């Protein structure tokens, strides 16, 4: 059953649409940096670094590095803005709506009479999570491959932190300056995880609301509202409260683009979202009336 659900989630037009959409923005982000920094000529930038990735002449070149040009390090382009803002929708498009549609068209009744509902829900949850995660992971891989083909890596230099915007004390900041590839890998994994979580959130909403558009877009609209709320709260109480990022589309970025990223806050939000999604699916899903 799991194999069947995963196949249905990935071999679909909806998955392809979401993948093309997110890959388009990831590719445009890569092109923006390739165009502006290396002029499509990697040798031009490679002349300035040694074999270890350290700048030979000026630390200024550490700014023009793979670590600032990949999608998670991009802080300037239009494409990155759209990519991160649309993550909740991109993750939901492939398969998060499927439970709602299957309940509506009667497919669920046929499944319930042939197999245990728990097995069906487990298979559906795996498929929804994996399709959402894949839609985020694949564009990242394409972006990193494109950027690394044209823009060499330089070890980040802490002296230019006002350009890197990886503030001391933010999540994984020490890794950025010592093991930048690991830092990049961890953020790609965090983004992939959140692709799955956003898909699960939409899936969980389908147990409460019987409207396709609410299922697809509610996490997106709520994320926008959270973005506004954190701006309003932290700008108002900046002197009394340490502003930690609570909007997932902003803490998924590897730089502190607005507020600090704190690992405990991010862990708490992640656990809360996963608990809400899985709790809804396995508690409400078992009792949900399908006949």
């Amino acid at each position, binding site marked *: 059953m799991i194999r069947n659900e995963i196949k249905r989630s990935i071999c679909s037009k909806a998955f392809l*649409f979401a993948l093309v*959409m997110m890959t388009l923005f990831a590719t445009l982000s890569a092109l923006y940096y390739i165009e502006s920094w290396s002029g499509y000529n990697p040798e031009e930038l490679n002349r300035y670094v040694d074999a270890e990735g350290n700048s030979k002449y000026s630390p200024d070149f550490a*700014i023009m590095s793979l670590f*600032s040009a990949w999608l998670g390090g991009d*802080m*300037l*382009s*239009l494409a990155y*803005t*759209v990519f991160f*803002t*649309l993550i909740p*929708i991109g993750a939901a*498009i492939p398969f998060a709506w499927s439970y709602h*549609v299957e309940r*509506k068209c009667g497919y669920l009744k046929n499944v319930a009479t042939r197999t245990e509902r728990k097995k069906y829900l487990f298979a559906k949850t795996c498929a929804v999570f994996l399709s959402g995660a894949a839609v985020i992971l694949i564009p990242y891989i394409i972006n990193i491959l494109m950027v690394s083909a044209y823009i060499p890596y330089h070890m980040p230099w802490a002296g230019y932190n*006002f*350009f890197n*915007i990886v503030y001391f004390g933010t999540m994984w900041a020490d890794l950025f300056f010592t093991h930048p590839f690991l830092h990049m890998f961890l953020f790609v994994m965090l983004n992939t995880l959140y692709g799955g979580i956003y898909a699960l959130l939409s899936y969980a909403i389908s147990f409460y609301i019987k*409207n*396709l*558009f609410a299922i*697809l*877009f509610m996490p*997106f*609209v709520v994320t*926008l*509202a959270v*973005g*506004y709320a954190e*701006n*309003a709260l932290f*700008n*108002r109480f900046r002197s009394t409260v340490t502003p930690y990022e609570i909007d997932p589309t902003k803490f998924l970025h590897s*730089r502190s*683009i*607005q507020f600090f990223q704190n690992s405990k806050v991010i862990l708490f939000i992640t656990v809360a979202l996963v608990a809400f999604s899985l709790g809804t699916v396995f508690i409400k899903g078992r009792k949900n009336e399908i006949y």
Partner: protein
Amino acid sequence: MKYIKFLRFDLRNGLLKKYMSYIGIALFTTIVFLDCQSVCRSFDTGFTLGEYFMYLYGGIKKYVPTPGEPFKVPYLWLLNHLLILYFTLNYTSADLNGFGQQTIYRSGGRVTWWLSKCSWQVIAICMYYFASWAVLVLLAVASRETISLEITQNVHLYLDFGKTLIPFEQIDLSTELLLLPLLFTVSIGLMQLTLSIIIKPAFAYIISATICIMSSHTQSPLLFGNYAMAARCNKVITDGMNATVGEVSMITLSVICVALGAVRFRRYDILSREE
């Protein structure tokens, strides 16, 4: 006559029965009003209605990509437009999946049905704005704030609009704050309605959201959202957007969308639709 009947049906089902969405807009306006009031009080100033409109519809100053200065998404401006577009996304599609098929079949007036839906879209969006303004005026009267569209220099304390050409007191921004945001939502709403019969409504909403996000990041006359940001108009900054060009562009887009939709809908297969 058929058009009037269709429109009456749409207003009854698409406006009166959707009262929850108006409560949602009223709640949103109230929260933003209280937020604006709280911010102003932290600077020991009051605020005028104009300044509130600036807070909600002003948008964000022109972004120039500079290393070390990441783009900050204007959530409030996006929420205002995307909430209204979200509330008006479902009605036409739901009607076409149900009762709409019968009315089209029995009346034989596809274009009339389409024009009625376009009229409903425009009226519904206007009603959301009017509801928001009405709630705002009530709150301002209750809080004894200044009922005026004048904008004072205080706005610089809590909104980062950069350097303006002339002081805000000398600029009349009523068109940019009242008409252009409404016109933008109407034109994008009509585009979304037309796209929802060419592609699917969900994809149409994604395109609307993408246009709004792109408009907030990049200042370009082709991204119409720029006209709906008072912070980017040519009365405020040197290379700003012209309000008249914005009005003409958005009305043209609306007319093209309605016409394109009418042409498409005449040969649209209404029976084999699915969500």
